[in-house]
């Protein structure tokens, strides 16, 4: 891909053709704040926080949606730009209910970060009472629309990434709010609880219900692992405090899932800490299960399979593989049945 040169804040920089001014700036360590932009939902232009001045163009331009062009002269820190950004953040703070002390997103909130970086203490505008829905009807997700900054990221997540078509913006002006289906409570909507929307929400408007009160962002370690549920092998980030999983998010920027997860991978982690979880093999002896070593269990299974094969022939044995386990596991299963047992009786669960 060919490169082009432009100037940002007096610094001449190179970027690939087709890049936006925002990415060009970020690649080169020039900070431009954003709220509605996310690399996975792309071009946005809604919050207007990423505005910059461009020589020869009237007004301000949103850098998230402005293609970098050769010779462009961009300024990211003029009085007009900084004051516009401050106004936007102050408007958010005066038009919503943002109590960071009690918010789950404290420490991991993009609105809080932007306010901090712009040095905003309290908005100069009056606080306008808001009474938008607080919806905890979904078993896994809490929606507090008084903290919503109308960035549309959840909507893009639901419609363009997860493609579940549940969320959209309803109403207009300052009443504009994210709605599920035709403004139903989330728990009664067609939502499949994949949590894509929660992951992309920049504020505390969408949060994981099970994580409430369990810990602050800075108290948690993030541990990357592979989801144990199926053969897709989604990459997870476990958010762990005191050796317990507080919540799970999809690992961004990596195959195969690039941040997306299903309801089980994201919310079905309780089994990890279950006291009933099996930790060693069991063999039924005298009508009761007993814990045994792996060696004993494998010897027992091999012995019984050999016995059956000797007595009734290999045709008496069938192997059922798991449709959700990996290709490699299923290959080994097939190989084992044909080469070791000597039968073509192999199938998988989804067909039985």
């Amino acid at each position, binding site marked *: 891909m060919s490169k082009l040169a432009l100037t940002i804040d007096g610094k001449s920089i190179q970027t690939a053709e087709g890049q936006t001014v925002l990415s060009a700036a970020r690649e080169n360590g020039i900070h431009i704040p954003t709220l509605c932009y996310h690399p996975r939902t792309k071009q946005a*232009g809604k*919050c*207007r926080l990423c505005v910059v001045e461009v020589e020869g163009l*009237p*007004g301000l331009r949103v850098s998230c949606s402005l293609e970098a062009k050769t010779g462009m002269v961009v300024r990211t820190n003029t009085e007009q730009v900084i004051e516009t950004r401050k*106004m936007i953040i102050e408007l958010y703070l005066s038009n919503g209910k943002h109590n960071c002390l009690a918010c789950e997103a404290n420490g991991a909130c993009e609105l809080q970060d932007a306010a901090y970086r712009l040095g905003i203490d309290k908005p100069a505008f009056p606080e306008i009472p808001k009474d938008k829905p607080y919806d905890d009807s979904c078993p896994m997700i809490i929606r507090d629309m008084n903290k919503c900054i*109308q960035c549309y990221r959840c909507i893009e997540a639901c419609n363009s990434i997860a493609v579940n078509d549940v969320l959209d*913006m309803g109403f207009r*002006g*300052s009443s504009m709010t994210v709605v599920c289906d035709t403004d139903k409570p989330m728990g009664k909507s067609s939502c499949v609880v994949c949590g894509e929307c929660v992951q992309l929400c920049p504020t505390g408007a969408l949060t994981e219900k099970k994580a409430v009160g369990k810990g602050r962002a800075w108290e948690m370690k993030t541990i990357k692992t592979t989801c144990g549920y199926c053969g897709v092998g989604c990459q997870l980030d476990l958010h762990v405090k005191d050796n317990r999983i507080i919540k799970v998010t999809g690992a961004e920027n990596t195959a195969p899932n690039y941040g997306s997860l299903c309801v089980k991978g994201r919310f079905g982690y309780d089994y990890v800490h279950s006291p009933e979880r099996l930790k060693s093999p069991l063999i039924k002896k005298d009508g009761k299960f007993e814990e045994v070593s792996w060696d004993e269990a494998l010897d027992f299974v091999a012995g019984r399979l050999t016995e059956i094969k000797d007595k009734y022939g290999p045709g008496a044995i069938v192997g059922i593989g798991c449709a959700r386990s990996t290709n490699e596991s299923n290959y080994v299963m097939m190989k084992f049945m044909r080469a070791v047992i000597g039968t073509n009786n192999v199938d998988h669960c989804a067909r039985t």
Partner: protein
Amino acid sequence: MVAIAERILLTKSNVRELHSISVYLEHGGYQALKKALSMPPADIISMVEQSELRGRGGAGFPAGRKWRFLPAGRQLKRYLICNADEGEPGTFKDRQIMEFDPHLLIEGMTIAGYATGSCQGFIYIRGEYDWIAKVLVRAIKEAEDIGFSGNNILDTGFSFCVDVFRGAGSYICGEETALIESIEGKAGRPRLKPPFPASCGLYGEPTVIHNVSTLAFVPFIIERGPEAFKSFGKPGSYGTKMFGLCGHVNKPGVYEHPLGVSLKKLIYEDAGGIKGGKRLKAVIPGGLSAPVLKANEIDISMDFDSLTAAGSLLGTGGIIVLDEGVSIPFVAQKTAKFFAHESCGKCTPCREGTNVIRFLMDRLMQGKGSLNDIEQVLRLCRYMKGATLCALGEAAALAIGTMVRKFRDEFEELVK
């Protein structure tokens, strides 16, 4: 009475039943379409370009240049949209054509459709104009029956259908991309530009969108030529414009004049001066979005450049006249309420900014405000400008900011 020679669009306003096709034909109707269909489309675009016709919907963009933005090659499906949303407060000019001379619009659209290679035209009309929508539907049917519209027009092989689409009562649906979203069945919220409609518009296809009055000039330009059009008006602002006068005037109504007519003449001659012999206080010269002019600023030529130079806008040409009895803070409060109510909500400066301005204006009017409230209104108006996704938020900031700046003493009166 304005001399007929001074007009292009309203020359036949004395003709009765002009809305019926037989009367329209008797008065030379559809001759321009016949002429256009005998010409190559590129020549029509050139004529419109040479006429220097600028859009009458508010922004004044040159029509011919807009048509040139269409992608080359005619393989793509294209659409032509007539913007008949006429939602700008104080504006009531387009209905004059649609209600009394609907065939002029249909003829203009069909010529524009032919020139731009469009297959389908839409008239997006504001929901409140329900009876006018019926007039249009009837006129389209008449034109189709005689072969001036629909399939294989006048046996030339060119087909162009016009459909009437009624809006549902939202001001923002007059913004071209919100209008397109609305026709597509979505909530009326503007799209991020670029891409512009000429490359990616209705259903993702190249689309040309024009105000009713812009399209209504096309038959004249084709029939009489670009020079005839340019004999009206002045450089940069050729042709005429229908000005709608309302408010405290003796004879509110629509008056057509060449661009460059004096605002003073419009108010005192056409509209018969201020009602009840009162003194003039202020004029909003181009629909509510246009910044207010003080009484001593009305000696001005009504054209694109002069009004911009005076810090206002020609806008829609809807002129709102306010007499000495009017409280400007009251007007500002109503204006703030309007824009806050009509903001689509998509971008932050407009959604939240208009809401805070409305809140502050209410507080000021209730006598509970402070000097700081006035400063914060001005701060919002200053920084919303240039930062919004579409022109609605910017218009709110300009209109209200100008009222506060020019009549600041009246606002300060409220906090004494």
